[in-house]
């Protein structure tokens, strides 16, 4: 009996739990562990999210938009026809402290030079640290764009470019261009543990890094010295919760305040729950069906237009995206500046498609290859299912589509070489600059081995693309992009399928959270009521 009583007391104590008072802590249920905390050597959104609270960049994206605003660079001037950019750095910006490192000086030009050189110059002592893969720096063509970077004084940096490209200002706001502390880097080099630079980050951002336990938790503290929008909570915690159902359960139970990547299947229930709120926005991506414009009959734009009309995209969005997708009318999602809202939707009209094919001299049945995506991507949840639906639609206009796919690496390679007649593909944007989408249809991308699977090359489109890179005024650039969207719509090098819709779920007492069209998360200015 005694034992039973004891067990009962113990059980009650266990179930009752503890309710201790504490400082204001915001818990974000994240989807996985970061590879490390240096965005320059990472490629995954999970890793970028974990490092973002700690760091700043020369330029920043205004929270909740793709607008480029001053960051560690307070201002800049573009001269020399877009080939020289002079940055004026912010003064009095403090780096965070760690247990074993206390900064002795404020942020200055040396930190900027170091952060570039690590990714750019092989003789930088950090170039090889932690594997030394700078995928984004290379993917964004930084080595091809940059000519030189020099400091004229502690708070002025002059950047010279090989070719004019103002879109580089958006590149600088991307995670991989996070500015780290050179003093910290030197300190660790002397100590003989340079890899700590990537494990215990020191930055200038709204939150300072406290601790990280793999697959379990990342802790941050509010940086009271932060120069920008102040954090409103004292502590920020990433509770690493890989399973989406468990994340939802934790959110419901109040164990986290904001939830990464809710499952589309849970959304309806979440929206009904008054303790939760769900927000959504089109993702910075696009899925499309590319026609190889170098292979007959797809060298004729009428054939491309006709097949575009043959596909019932509403059905695809309903059945495959399960509502988490929106029909795309242009290459860029509507959240991006320069989106042309006058571009009409491609109608679903199979009769007209048949007539156009006949008029273009295509004899039925037309046999084509239809390559489908072998992997699920943010913009295309199920390439095979979409392929099958397209195949069925095409059969109705007298087109026999043979479904083909390869292993993902092979698929990309062959697509880039233009081996396909038609194929699914897509793009996830990087920096929110329209150039980061439209370059996909530039003539260089159409060359064998390059990333444009339509292999379409239009002189006017290409000229406008180049010209837009030299203009500094956003409104002037937007006009050119607007025209390019018209050309692309008319020429139909591809059928634009969809932009995904990104959902985020949180407790209804979370205030000030702004969803980003870039798909990034940020917690400065976020509070719990």
């Amino acid at each position: 009996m005694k034992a039973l009583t004891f067990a009962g007391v113990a059980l009650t104590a266990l179930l009752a739990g503890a309710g201790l008072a504490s400082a204001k802590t915001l818990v974000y249920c994240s989807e996985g562990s970061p590879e490390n905390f240096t965005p320059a050597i990472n490629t995954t959104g999970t890793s970028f999210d974990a490092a973002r609270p700690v760091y700043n960049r020369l330029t920043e994206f205004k929270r909740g938009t793709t607008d480029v605003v001053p960051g560690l660079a307070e201002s800049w001037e573009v001269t020399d026809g877009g080939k020289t950019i002079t940055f004026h750095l912010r003064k009095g910006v403090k780096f965070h402290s760690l247990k074993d490192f206390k900064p002795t000086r404020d942020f200055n030009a040396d930190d900027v030079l170091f952060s570039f050189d690590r990714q750019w110059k092989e003789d930088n002592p950090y170039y090889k640290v932690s594997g030394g893969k700078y995928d984004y720096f290379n993917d964004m063509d930084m080595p091809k764009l940059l000519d030189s970077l020099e400091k004229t004084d502690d708070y002025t940096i002059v950047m010279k470019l090989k070719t004019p490209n103002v879109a580089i200002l958006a590149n600088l706001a991307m995670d991989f261009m996070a500015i780290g502390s050179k003093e910290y880097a030197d300190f660790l080099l002397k100590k003989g543990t340079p890899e700590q630079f990537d494990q215990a980050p020191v930055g200038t951002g709204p939150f300072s890094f406290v601790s990280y336990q793999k697959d379990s938790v990342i802790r941050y503290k509010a940086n009271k010295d932060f120069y920008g929008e102040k954090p409103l909570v004292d502590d920020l915690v990433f509770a690493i919760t890989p399973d989406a159902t468990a994340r939802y359960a934790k959110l419901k139970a109040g164990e986290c305040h904001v939830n990464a990547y809710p499952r589309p299947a849970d959304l309806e229930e979440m929206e009904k729950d008054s303790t939760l709120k769900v927000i959504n926005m089109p993702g910075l991506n696009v899925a499309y069906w590319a026609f190889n414009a170098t292979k007959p009959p797809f060298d004729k734009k009428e054939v491309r237009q006709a097949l575009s009309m043959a596909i019932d995209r509403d059905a695809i969005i309903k059945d495959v995206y399960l509502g988490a997708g929106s029909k795309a009318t242009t290459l860029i999602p509507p959240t991006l500046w320069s989106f042309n809202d006058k571009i009409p939707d491609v109608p679903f009209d199979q009769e007209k498609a048949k007539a156009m094919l006949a008029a273009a001299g295509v004899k039925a049945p037309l046999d084509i290859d239809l390559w489908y995506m072998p992997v699920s991507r943010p913009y295309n949840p199920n390439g095979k299912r979409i392929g099958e639906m397209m195949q069925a639609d095409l059969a109705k206009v007298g087109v026999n589509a043979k479904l083909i796919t390869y292993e993902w690496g092979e698929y990309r390679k062959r697509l880039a070489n233009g081996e396909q007649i038609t194929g699914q593909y897509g793009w996830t944007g990087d920096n929110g600059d329209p150039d980061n989408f439209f370059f996909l249809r530039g003539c260089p991308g159409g060359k064998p081995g390059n990333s444009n699977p339509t292999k379409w090359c239009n002189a006017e489109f290409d000229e406008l693309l180049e010209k837009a890179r030299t203009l500094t005024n956003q409104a002037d650039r937007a006009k050119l992009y607007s025209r390019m969207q018209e050309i692309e719509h008319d020429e139909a090098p591809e059928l634009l399928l969809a932009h995904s819709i990104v959902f985020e779920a949180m407790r209804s007492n979370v205030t000030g959270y702004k969803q980003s069209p870039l798909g990034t998360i940020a917690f400065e200015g976020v509070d719990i009521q």
Partner: protein
Amino acid sequence: MVAYFLRRIALTIPTFLALMFLTFAAIRLVPGDPVEVRTGEHGMSPERLAYFRHELGLDQPVWKQFLDYIWRLAHGDFGVSLSSQQKVVTEFLTLFPATLELSFFAMLFAIAIGVPAGALAAVKRGGFYDQALMTVSLFGYSMPIFWWGLLLIMFVSVRLGLLPVSGRIDLINYSFDQPTGFMTIDALLSDQPGAFLDALRHLILPAIVLGTVPLAVIARMTRSSMLEVLSEDYVRTARAKGLSPARVIGVHALRNALLPVVTVIGLSISGLMAGAVLTETIFSWPGVGHWLIDSIGRRDYPALQGGVLLISAVVVFVNLIVDLVYGVIDPRISHGR
């Protein structure tokens, strides 16, 4: 005893060799190598692709890669994880205490309930309790872990709000260093009031989920083994001598009946490791199971190869211990050979 011990250790060597080869080969049969799996729509220039393949030694013939791998292993070098750039052994040692702690509590749960429940069923053979236990244990045995875990979370944590959903500790109220990696011990060391109880609360559901299959197996095994023993002559003799039923069952019968149960417990350890992969995923438990799954996705060859080998070493070691315990419980085994 020593000879027996040495013989058992020698027998593990071929197991390890086979394991090394299998993990090495299996991960390479999966399409996409660690370099390619990083590449998105941007693609990667052939020069950079070749450069990184060379850096990782992937441009070497496979047989040479395998020999290099064995050579490094022989020197105690498990390699460096491609994704985190940490030593595989370091990562394993950071994560393994969580798996061990969870497995320990799961086994504790399974044994503490399974053995008495099975023994009782044997004593009350054919009765309602016996039938009910056997039915329930059949359910337990066939329970899909994922479903069972989610069911418990939804009911106990979300609906009733009795226990936390997942994780190892309340992250809002407690924050302390983890010198041992065992949350219950670290919580005790932290001097933070309530931390230990909170760590236990976090262990309850995952331990139940992971312990359910072994519980069912142990209960059934104890029952059938007890039934056999209860009909033995010496039990009849003990009864005839007038010993109390508790003493007959608890001392004479149960001790002998436990022999096959100990074997089953040993065999369950490898099953526990497999179950831990799922349990850790559902409960966001930062252990090695979840880490391995991640490594497959990232084609992190060193992490996967090293991880599998280290876990296997643990399983082999535990089985060795079980064999030795077996020797202690039943002296015939070590002396007889």
